[in-house]
């Protein structure tokens, strides 16, 4: 038996293995275990912190208001509700928008809140000011793009507009972008 064994021995070189030292093994093991524990503590916190960008937006900040086919060159009044959730605080706003499309077919929506003191303006509501928005409180009036012509010092605000599947969606109120 041992004879065969010796013959085997003489024809092979002893195998050379690249062995890990004990120190390396310990470093990897301890380092890995520590990394695991640190991750276990900090990863929930990081996920907690970035939650706002990873949450579902839900219905989104835009509300479906009117069909595109109904929009004409003449401003029309549309009523809609906007639910706003800010953390734990829920509020429902009842809003009104005057929507029209201009000569190039772009749809825009104006807010009828007069920029003077907040009364509600009407389109073509005063025969002295045809084809204009007129405020019954102090006589402020605006062009169909919302530009202020008297009493008020700013143009009517706009709603952000998004067109999707032949519907007009309205978002938050922003300062007028049509008249500079």
């Amino acid at each position, binding site marked *: 038996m041992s004879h065969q064994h010796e013959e085997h021995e003489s024809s092979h070189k002893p195998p050379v293995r690249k062995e890990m030292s004990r120190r390396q093994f310990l470093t990897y093991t301890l380092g890995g275990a520590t990394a695991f524990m640190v991750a276990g503590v*900090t990863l*929930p*916190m990081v996920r*907690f912190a970035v*939650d706002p960008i*990873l949450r579902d937006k839900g219905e989104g900040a835009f509300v479906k208001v009117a069909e595109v086919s109904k929009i004409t060159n003449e401003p029309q009044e549309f009523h809609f509700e906007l639910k706003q959730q800010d*953390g734990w605080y829920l509020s429902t706003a009842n809003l009104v928008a005057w929507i029209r499309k201009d000569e190039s077919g772009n749809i825009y929506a104006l807010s009828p809140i007069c920029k003077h003191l907040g009364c509600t303006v009407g389109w073509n509501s005063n025969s002295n000011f045809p084809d204009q928005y007129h405020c019954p409180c102090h006589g402020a009036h605006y062009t169909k793009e919302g530009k202020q012509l008297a009493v008020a010092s700013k143009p009517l605000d706009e709603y952000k507009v998004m067109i999707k599947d032949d519907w007009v969606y309205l978002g938050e109120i922003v300062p007028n972008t049509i008249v500079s």
Partner: protein
Amino acid sequence: MFKNVYDWIDERLDITPIWRDVADHEVPEHVNPAHHFSAFVYCFGGLTFFITVIQILSGMFLTMYYVPDIINAYKSVEYLQTQVAFGQIVRGMHHWGASLVIVMMFLHTLRVFFTGSYKAPREMNWVVGMLIFFVMIGLGLTGYLLPWDNKAYFATKVTLEIANSIPVLGPVMKELLQGGTIVGAETLTRFFAIHVFFLPAVLLILLVGHFIMIRRQGISGPL
């Protein structure tokens, strides 16, 4: 890869002496639980520090959602607990960590006392340790009010009455802590500032002192 990063930094800052001091620092035999199992009692100090780190981290992340005013405090806590991902876990860490850190600190203090480690030349460290103890109690008491629920409110009233009972300075301290004549909006903001800024700053300074002294003097000797 880690070696490359280390080398890059070491070429510039010569951190090897510091690293070697940490890495080659051997655990003395009498505090090593592998040699004497009962030596596990020497771990409580480090454990206290470990939980303190968790408290600081979880606390920092909680301030991303918590609102320290009387109208919104409770609602913000309810919101982060139920509506934010992992909110229960992060708040839970902070809540249970608060109790655990007191337990660990107490066990650590017992160890220091019963091994006589407070004796010369380590008297200053004992004093610093005592100050850390007071700061931790302060952190617990100020943090307790922040959710602004019934438990928090009445516990705070009790605490302030205790402060009030101190002779001479008591009433002044009570009104100073309250931020006014009642436990109210001013108290909440004040407690938030103390809990998040003032006491952690003091704690960090004390901890630095505590650790420097320990490394300078070494752990206390075998019994």
